[in-house]
């Protein structure tokens, strides 16, 4: 086996994993705080991509700056969606939550289809053409920057949740909603902000991959499934789990493409899921069933 190829595969997997992590962190935050699985997650990501595309093509904003705007827009969208839709089903059975979120996903996907058409598009950034060479191994600068920003955002979110009052009340509401109510936490506000932040994460992730991957409205479902896979591997509701899981899944897929037929690489990540479910049903960093 060619060692350069293995090294390149590891690096490609690691760098792409940053985006997986950021996306999964958004999903796990929403689940952890209000126990709702956001099946519209991938479609929100697609909208993040298209917003970055709009900013780049209409206003000439580079997606590596535009991601801030995309995150803000998705934050507002998440806040409103939570207040008017998700809030009604927070206490409802899971199947009803799933129906609502799938409905939101359908609306988002088809709205993108109407607004942007079905053809795949991509965003150009000044960075997309540049590469750094470390001997025989190449580093795609766009992927490196995407990775760096995704890691920084995840870290910032972690600090927010552990060091600020709002972050602490979010964790309180996640751990024990009733207890949080008793000590005077505005749980409704906490829920809305959590959903907004989850949406902002995935919006930023979408904008950050838009210079790397071509995208089209139909891409949301695949992204949702990948994120969901990562969150289960990492442990439902665990931020660290989602972060590590994202890197792990991406590495597994990349190495799968090196050692097996690349068309089987998704087999590797889903096999990982099956193994985790068999031996650690709560996920790598899950707290177990309480």
């Amino acid at each position, binding site marked *: 086996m060619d060692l350069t190829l293995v090294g390149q595969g590891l690096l490609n997997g690691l760098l792409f994993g940053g985006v997986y992590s950021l996306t999964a962190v958004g999903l796990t935050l929403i689940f952890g705080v209000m126990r709702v699985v956001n099946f519209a997650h991938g479609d929100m990501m697609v909208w993040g991509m298209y917003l970055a595309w709009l900013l780049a093509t209409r206003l000439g904003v580079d997606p590596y700056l535009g991601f801030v705007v995309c995150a803000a827009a998705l934050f507002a969208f998440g806040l409103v969606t939570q207040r008017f839709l998700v809030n009604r089903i927070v206490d409802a059975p899971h199947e009803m939550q799933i129906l609502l979120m799938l409905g939101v996903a359908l609306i988002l996907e088809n709205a993108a289809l109407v607004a942007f058409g079905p053809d795949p598009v991509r965003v150009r950034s000044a960075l997309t053409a540049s590469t750094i060479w470390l001997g025989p191994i190449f580093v795609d600068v766009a992927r490196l920057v995407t990775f760096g920003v995704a890691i920084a955002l995840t870290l910032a979110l972690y600090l927010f949740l552990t060091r600020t009052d709002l972050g602490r009340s979010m964790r309180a509401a996640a751990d024990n909603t009733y207890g949080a109510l008793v000590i005077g936490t505005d749980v409704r506000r906490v829920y809305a902000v959590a959903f907004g932040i989850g949406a902002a994460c995935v919006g930023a992730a979408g904008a950050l991959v838009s210079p790397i991957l071509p995208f*089209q409205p139909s891409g949301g479902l695949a992204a949702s499934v990948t994120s969901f896979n990562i969150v289960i591997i990492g442990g439902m509701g665990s931020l660290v789990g989602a972060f590590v899981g994202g890197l792990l899944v991406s590495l597994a897929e990349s190495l799968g493409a090196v050692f097996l037929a690349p068309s089987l690489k998704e087999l590797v990540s889903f096999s990982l899921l099956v193994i985790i479910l068999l031996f650690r049903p709560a996920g790598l960093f899950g707290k177990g069933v309480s």
Partner: protein
Amino acid sequence: MRDHQIHRRRFLEAAGVAAGAATLGFPLPLRAQAPAIKIGVIHPVTGPLAEPGQACRLGAQMAADAVNGAGGIKALGGARIELLVGDTQTKPDVGRTEAERVINQGAQILMGSFDSGSTAAMVPVAQQRRVPFLVDIAAADPITANVAKAVKEGQQKLQFVYRNFPTGSSFGKKAVQYFGEVFKEAGVSPRRVVLMYCNDLFGQNNAKGFQAAHAAAKPSWEIVDVIPWPEPPQDLSTEVSRAKAAKPDIIAPITRPASAQLLFPELRKQRVDIMGIVGPGSPGLYEAGQLAVLKHDLEYVLASIPWANFKNPRTAKAAEEYQKRSGGKTFDTNSGYSYDGIMLLADVLERAKSVDPDAVVAALKATNYTGGLMQYGGPIVFNELGDNPNAITTMIQILGQKPVAVWPKEAALAKLVFPRPKA
């Protein structure tokens, strides 16, 4: 109030007279005209293959307009061709239900449907409902071969499915032949070819056809690695790293539009040092939308694909009309084969002199049509499998951001550039 009622009664009387006149009087001139012939035309006009799918639909519409403008089907009293359009969304299940729907709405003939998966799903509908089905585009061999086999073995009585498009195996044979000829013409002898393909029905079938043709022809170059990817792919960086590790002289990609948009920038970024990219035949390498997005990444790319015969003045005329009606797009493989499909069906109907399925099938089998605008190796005829052996590919190259025919020599409109100049 009374006044009002009288008004209403009078109104009803007047309406009755008008309605009577409508049923008795107006249909008279219409009765002389034959009823329109309904052709169900189904393509992926939304979803990942929307660009080629929409090109197909417009090509078919242009041909129908041309037939109707010239007086319709003369053997059927000047009957007009009416298209009942459908959308597969590139989903086989949708393709199947769309075929059912247009037949229920009266379609007497089916045409479609670009992607092999959906086309294969439409075949059983055509066979069960006894509706002649002309495959205008779709390469996977089993689409016609399975039906021909069932008829031969007596499980089915009649074959309703015919195809005027190269099959996956003929794509492979032509590609291997053109590879050798192009290398010889350029005076180079590349040794190592890496085959990369999208792992769907179309990609698998064409990759298999290419490998089989290579094994049969035993050329001086070898296929050193075969790299399939799941379609649509999320990321192709590791696939390209793997291709690079195989130290190729030639990359032979079988793509779809979205995967081509991932593959080509990645090949450039990873500085895969090759003589050139030569596609054994697939979409994604030459369409207007792809050229707009990929720009210089497609320059000098060669591809062995079904192509229009621009030496034919009628093709140039159709291309001009197509450009106007599409908002500036090029008349290409997709619009061209769908155009030829409707023209071919018009010829079949003239000879069948009926829309009875058996008569249409008999006329299809007896086809010997020379009016096609695409590059053929002879007249359009159908062999024992229901395929046209004269549907062949042409080697095109992207030169100055435009696809141009470069091989075989008799079809070439420009001299091929190979190996590609070093950047």
